[in-house]
């Protein structure tokens, strides 16, 4: 029996049979060593990358996308926008956050736009990378921005980072992923070793 292409209930049943048949350790090794989780993968909403969201209109979404990629640019790992973090922020704010938090994000994005227009006479999206970086750094440094705006930006930033590391690629590939550790132990940490991304709830 192949472990790929199984629905959630089928997967549970499959696990149960395996556990009964061969004991827990070998069953989990088999399943998690396979492509099972790839078969269940989250679908990145490419259709949403440039369109309007549930909360954000199209221009705001565009600005957010550039904010996301300024905070988490493409390096040897994908950028925030590569993983649809702007789509995620729109979705998550709409579904799970208060109106106050939604407004905080709308306000800071609009402030960033205003700041870009006032200082560069261009939209944030049209600034070069260095200008974008410096603009966002000036929010955290409260250089031309208030404490309230800094707080709003920090909230937006934490939501973007949450979206990044709870995506399938973020958790499985960019961090270390170990869904069934099989025990707890203290291990050495070598330079460059990544965090665990395997927590299954937040």
């Amino acid at each position, binding site marked *: 029996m192949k472990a790929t292409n199984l629905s959630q209930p089928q997967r549970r049943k499959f696990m149960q049979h395996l556990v009964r048949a061969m004991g827990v350790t070998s069953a989990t090794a088999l399943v998690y060593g396979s492509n099972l989780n790839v078969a269940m993968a989250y679908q990145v909403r490419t259709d949403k990358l440039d369109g309007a969201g549930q909360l954000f209109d199209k221009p705001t979404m565009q600005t957010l996308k550039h904010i996301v990629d300024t905070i988490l640019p493409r390096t040897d790992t994908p950028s925030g926008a590569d993983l649809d973090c702007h789509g995620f922020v729109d979705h998550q704010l709409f579904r799970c956050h208060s109106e106050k938090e939604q407004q905080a994000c709308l306000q800071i994005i609009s402030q960033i736009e205003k700041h870009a227009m006032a200082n560069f006479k261009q939209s944030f999206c049209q600034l070069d990378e260095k200008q974008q970086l410096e603009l966002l750094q000036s929010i955290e440094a409260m250089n031309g921005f208030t404490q309230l705006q800094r707080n709003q930006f920090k909230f937006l930033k934490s939501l973007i980072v949450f979206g990044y590391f709870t995506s399938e690629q973020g958790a499985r590939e960019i961090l270390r992923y170990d869904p069934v*550790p099989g025990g707890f132990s203290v291990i050495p940490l070598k330079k460059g070793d990544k965090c665990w991304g395997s927590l299954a709830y937040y």
Partner: protein
Amino acid sequence: MNKDIYIKQQNKKFDVLVVGSGITGGWAAKEFCERGFNTLMIERGRVVEHRKDYITEGKPVWEYDNRSKVDNLLIEQQYKIQKDCYAFHDGTKQFFGNDRDLPYETTEGTDFRWIRANQLGGKSLLWHRQSYRMCEDDFLANKRDGVGNDWPIRYQDIADWYSYVETFAGISGSKENLPNLPDGEFLPPFAMTGPEKALKVAIEKAFPGRNLIMGRTAHLTKPSTLHISQGRVQCQTRNECQKGCSFGAYFSTQSSTLPAAAKTNNLSIAANSVVHSVIYDEKRNRAIGVRVIDNDDLSTREYFADVVFLCASTIGTTQIMLNSTSKKFPNGIANSSGVLGHYLMDHNYNARATGDIEGFEDEYYKGRRPSSCYMPNFQTRPELYRKGYLRGFAYGISTFRSDWRGKSQQDGIGSDFKQQLSLPGKWGVNFSAQGEMLPHFDNQMSLHPTKTDKWGIPLINFNVEYRENEKAMMDDAAEMGAEMLRAGGCTNVKSGTSYDLPHRAPGIAIHEVGTARMGRDPKNSVLNQYCQSHDIPNLFVTDGSGYCSSGVVNPSLTFMALTARAVDYCAKEIKAQRL
């Protein structure tokens, strides 16, 4: 499980009715079934089958609609109260009660968080699994302080029963030989991290009498043949326990007591059966059965037996008793004393101290340890009490390396920041206080005079407050926690209390106890030392209702021991034809 085990209508009389299927209901059913009694377990909620109904188990975070967070609208409509429980998220919400269908009232100026888990297995599926024995001093506290009534039992009365339930349930922990936290029958403890060991050394040296140990928890770190025979295997340290565990690695009704009870062929289960009241035969002065309202179609039915065990949770059981009125007991069955519903206690989990730990940068951990460290109560006797309040508290102590969640709050933008986010950060530690709550007559649950729920059962009104003693204790616990962290070399130490926050109101520790207290005197207590009601010999209550004082330790292990002991006593009384 065998389908024949589930019944609905049943005219034949059972030997025993067990109302509730959580930790105590499971134990009562197992103990009776293994002694050959024909037992009916009655559960108000749906059936949850081990493994099959753990619908979110193993589901990674990106597969949830909202990355495991619960939709706002759903919370607003169904989980306004339940959302405040630490274990509530999109992977566990199916095991929490629906607040829309389960309303309750609170007296003006007070607040209460009533967390519900109405399904087969009850809160045994959702519990935090920390398992500690109460100590000799705990059973003497009321007597020594003159607060509340004296427990009718002492530690020695239940020590063997602790051993009995520990062996079966499987408790991991370390032998410490501490007078304030008796040792038990342990499976190997989980490992401590380097920073935990260092804190232990520093704090125990600076504060003799205070001990930092590995938490004791109902997880199979090394299953015995007894556990394997229950169908359980070793803990995989996923720490997603509250979704249900197909490995059966933590103790729950489903993983442990239910299969043992079912194996005897003496068990029947009536699910979706909301117990309205206990049926009382005034002539014989016996409980003869229960009235049930169907959870789904609201039809009524009755079940009969020679003995009734109420194991429906402290609040659930007391609600049933208050609602079981007769000419002889106009204020609730077995309530000649009038104390039923009074002296409601929870634990007070409302002080915290946090700090950073320097060093240990080359150390990390593998696995998500489903437990943390523990500092047992070191104020168990009046001569050890601190100034300004009675009794004491324990600390749950956890250490961790910070990750992107904490780092995302720091300043930083761009590629270096992004790289840093993926690496483990500084070690941190937090001390969370777990305080005793004194028994107070006015901390009471009662039935609402007019309002009823959808099953026609009167709503509960809570009138419960943290009082001066509880608040003073938490103030001190926050400060002492910070003091110990500083002594342990921590930096960036912060501390504070949360007892004034609405979402931290009484009930939120989910350790409700005390509303049908035990005692020697039938005039001021409901139960005797065997959890048997003073008034009606064949009516027993073995959940937290019987507590005389809350003590400090997590109560579930004591619930198990008291239940097993009560069944043993009851079985002997049946044999002697005294019931």
